[in-house]
Structure formats: structure tokens, C-alpha cells
């Protein structure tokens, strides 16, 4: 009996640890400005005012930051476009490379693995400026593509590593059967292999999407107008130079988090299976 009880206490501690910081921010986002300074955990007079600021499309509000807040819907669309493209690029390039690494023995495969790992260990600040110049010379600045490409480069190595591990867990018999039936290696990959590995693919896809959604440095550097600017950059506009009340920042934070949160809840099972499976195979 006491073992049950202690298990639930243990679970409660874990839940509190995982949710408390975010729960507080959510609570603050419903507080009127003057309540913030009182170190409250719960809004005494809850208000939607902080959120309304982000969805006022009418005219020019006198509130500081309203100009930025009004661009939010557009920025969310930008983030969606960028995130989806990053996900697709990761899945195509990643699954091809990972399949080769997992299944087809060839010289230099260790070298490739190290190359992928190495490209992930470079700090972003190191390549920011050269990458900026590169994007400029391609004429890609302030386009979705520049952000998509940069996000793909830092998510891809991870995708390949995880997928390679995941692919190795799939029994060889499946493809062997397909090959016996006369499939080419590529045919075996597309028709037999990929359907079986859906959990892994979904997991890395969501992973890449969320990483792209949350990335900031490159997105900030490469975009200048709302034509391409994603939502994290917009959110930081509030915080950095404007003296916007923390309640409004909190509301913006909650809005930015909403989609990744829903995605991770929906695909929770697949993510845990997919990512987890890859390292235990």
C-alpha cells in the first residue's frame, strides 16, 4: 500500500517539476499588469487583455507593441511554411542517408557518420556571418528558403543519427523477402521499409518541425520583413527593445508554444517509440 502511495507522490513531484514553470507563465498571461509585481501564482482578476492585443486587427492602437502584435498571424503562417519544408527535407534526405548507413555496407561509412556528428558540434555563432554572406550571394535573404536551408542543416545530422539507429532495429527478413520478390534496393526501401518505419519517421519529422519552429538566431539574421519572419523572431521583438509588460510577453510565449505542444501531445506515443527505439535497437 505505502509503495503505491509513494509511487504517486513520486509521480506528483515529476509532474510539478515538468509543468510548474510553464504553468506559472500561463497564469501570468491571464494577469492584469499590476498583479505581476505581487509574486502571485494565480491571477486574482483574470483577463484576456494580453491575448487580445495579438489579435486586434483594427486600426492603430496606442499600445506599445501593438504594431508587432498585429503581425502575429502572418508570422505563424511563415513558421508553418518553414517548419513543414524543413520536416519534408529532413525526411527525404535523412531517410535516404540513414538507410544507406544502416543497411548498405560501404567504405567510408564511419567517416560519413563522423562528418554528420561533426557538423552538429559547430556552434551557431561560428558560422553565422559566413552563412549570412552565402545566403546573400545566392540572393536568398529575407526568403523562406534561406531559413529552411539553415534549419535543415542543423536538424539533418540528428535526423540521420536517429533514423539510422531506428532502421537497424527493423528485422532484415522483410527486405530480404522483398528482394527475393525482385525489388531493387530502392524499391525495397520505398515499398517495404518506409511503411514499417513510420513511427521513427513521424518522430524525427515532428522533432525537426519543432526544432525549426523554435530556432531563433538564424531566423533573426536572415529575415528582415514580415514576408518571411517567423514567430520566434517576432516574439523576441517584444522582449528585447520594447518595454512591454511581462504579462504581454507571457501571452506571446503561450501562443508560440501552443502548436508544438499540441503536436507533441498528439504524437506523444510515436515520438517516444521512434526516438527511443533508435538507440536501443
Amino acid at each position, binding site marked *: 500500500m505505502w509503495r503505491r502511495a509513494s509511487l504517486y507522490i513520486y509521480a506528483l513531484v515529476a509532474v510539478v517539476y*515538468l509543468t510548474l514553470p510553464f504553468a506559472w507563465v500561463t497564469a501570468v498571461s491571464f494577469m492584469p499588469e499590476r498583479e505581476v509585481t505581487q509574486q502571485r501564482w494565480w491571477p486574482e482578476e483574470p483577463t484576456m487583455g494580453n491575448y487580445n492585443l495579438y489579435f486586434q486587427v483594427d486600426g492603430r492602437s496606442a499600445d506599445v507593441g501593438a504594431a508587432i502584435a498585429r503581425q502575429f498571424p502572418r508570422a505563424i503562417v511563415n513558421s508553418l511554411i518553414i517548419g513543414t519544408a524543413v520536416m519534408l527535407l529532413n525526411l527525404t534526405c535523412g531517410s535516404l542517408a540513414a538507410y544507406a548507413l544502416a543497411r548498405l555496407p560501404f567504405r567510408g561509412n564511419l567517416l560519413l557518420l563522423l562528418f554528420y556528428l561533426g557538423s552538429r558540434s559547430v*556552434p551557431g555563432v561560428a558560422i553565422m556571418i559566413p552563412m549570412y554572406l552565402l545566403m546573400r550571394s545566392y540572393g536568398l535573404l529575407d526568403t523562406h528558403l534561406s531559413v529552411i536551408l539553415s534549419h535543415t542543416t542543423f536538424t*539533418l545530422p540528428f535526423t540521420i543519427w536517429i533514423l539510422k539507429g531506428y532502421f537497424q532495429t527493423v528485422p532484415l527478413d522483410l527486405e530480404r523477402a522483398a528482394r527475393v520478390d525482385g525489388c531493387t534496393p530502392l524499391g525495397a526501401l520505398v515499398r517495404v521499409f518506409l511503411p514499417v518505419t513510420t513511427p521513427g519517421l513521424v518522430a524525427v519529422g515532428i522533432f525537426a518541425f519543432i526544432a525549426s519552429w523554435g530556432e531563433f538566431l538564424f531566423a533573426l539574421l536572415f529575415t528582415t520583413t514580415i514576408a518571411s519572419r517567423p514567430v520566434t523572431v517576432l516574439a523576441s521583438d517584444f522582449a528585447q527593445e520594447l518595454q512591454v509588460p511581462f504579462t504581454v510577453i507571457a501571452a506571446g510565449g503561450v501562443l508560440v508554444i501552443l502548436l508544438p505542444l499540441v503536436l507533441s501531445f498528439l504524437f506523444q506515443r510515436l515520438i517516444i517509440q521512434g526516438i527511443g527505439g533508435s538507440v536501443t535497437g
Partner: protein
Amino acid sequence: MTVLNPSHLMSRTRDALPLLLNLPAVILLLAFIAYPIGISFWMSLHRYNLRRPDQVYFHGLDNYATILASSEFWNALWISLYFTFMAVLLVIVIAMAIALLLHESFRGRGVVRALLLIPWAIPGVVNGLMWVGLLGDYGAFNAMLADSVAVVNYLFGLDIVYTGMASPFVALNAAIGAHVWRSVPFACIIFLAAIQAIPTEQYRAARVDGATSWNRFRFITLPWLYHAVLVVAIFETMNGFRAFDLIYALTGGGPGDATHVIAWQTYKEAFARLDFGGANAYSYLITVITMTLAVIYIRLLYRRGLVQG
């Protein structure tokens, strides 16, 4: 671990196909990472300060020599090592604790599992802002810390003055705590999967032998998790050395130089001093350090025969 022996599936002569399959990824990474890295290495061999555009010249390894001779570098390296070590350690311990919990069956486990992903889903910038709020003067966590210090003072008759983020000790460790919080879910997912892969017969046998739960953890669970722990350690070491966004938002490097981690130092070289030569040399040093650590980890993996070539 399934040991694959695919050699009879494919013949060795067909190296072209796997290389072809890797081509899109390699091209992307070469063009957008390897190339900038090459350029930045070339820059790191130059005196190249934007404030002196007419004095750009090659001077070999001078930037590296200057950095290695500066006390700022060693101070930053030391802080980064502490930061990374603590972060890796805490992530492993906390993620392991939660993974062990999620392995048990109890009502509401699905909910806990879903909540596990919250910290991970939060973008870095938002995470920074959130902790600024939590630990700031009006933050709920700040109030909690202040209260617990007051309780400790009362219980032990001490007179510790709590100064919040103005204390170098609190600032550095709070930054680590915030960094760890966001990193736990990923590690936890990996641990959970690894735990679930442990054959249950082993536990049964151990129970029959009368092993305590600690011994079961120590002699069965841990060895099985060796691989997972190393994978987490690799990724977390890299993340620890690169920690920047959070420091930028949360402490701005202060108080004093308590949170001058190495990525922050690099950023200051590049954007505060506009010394692109020095900044690129800094980034190279970070890359070399993280790569060295990564190679050590990978060698450990290989030695245990846990990765197939």
C-alpha cells in the same frame, strides 16, 4: 542489440548506391555548414576587425595565441566546463528518475508521459524569457528561493542574505537549472526506451536470488543503459558547450563574470568587439573541444561493440 550482418544481402562492389543515397544530405551540409566553416577558419587566421577595415592581413595562428594567453578564455572555459559537467550530470540523474517512474505502471501514467514533452516543445527564446520572469525580482521561483533561504536561516540560526540573481552562485546554477529543465525530456525518452528493452527475466531471476531493488538497479538496469547514457552524454555535452540563448536572456553574462560561458565570450568577440578573426578562432576552439569529447564518447561506444561500423 541485433547484430546485423548484411554482407550477404548486398555485394561489396556496390558502393555507389549508398554514396548516392547520402549525396543530398552531404551536399546540403557541405554547402551550408562545411563551406562556412572553411571560410570562418580562413578568417580565424587573419587580423580582421571590422573597425579597422584597412588593416586586414594574414597573421597565422596569432589569434589563437592571443586567446590562449588571455585570462578571459580560461575563465570562460572553466565556467563552461562546470556548466556542461553539471548539466550532463543533472540531466542524466533527473531523466533517469523520471524514466524509471514512467516504466512503472500506475493510473495516470499516460498523462505524465504527455506532460513530459512540455519542456522540450518550448522554443529556446521563450524558455529564456520564461526563466527571466520566474527568477526575476517578481518571479515566483525567486520568491520560493527567498522563502526557503528564510526557512533555513530560521532553522539553523543563520544569517544568509538572499540576493537572488545578483549572487554569482545563484545566477550560474539557476542558468544550469533552466538549461537542464529543457533538456530532460529528450534524455528521458531515450532512457525509457532503453529500460523497456531490458529482458524481464533478468529481474525475475534477480528477485529470486533476493537482490535488493538498489542492487537490481545497480547490476541490471545500469549496465543495460550504458549505451543510452553515452548517447545522452554526447548530445548534452554539445548542447552544454553551445549554451548561449539562455545566458543571453537570463543573465547577460553577469553578475561579475559569473556566467561568462565560452559561447557568450565568442559572441562578444564577434558582435561587441567586431573582431571576426578572434571570434572565429574562439569558435574553432569550441568546436575542437566538443569534437574531442564526442570522439572520446564514440570510442567508448565502439569499445563496447555498441555501434556497428
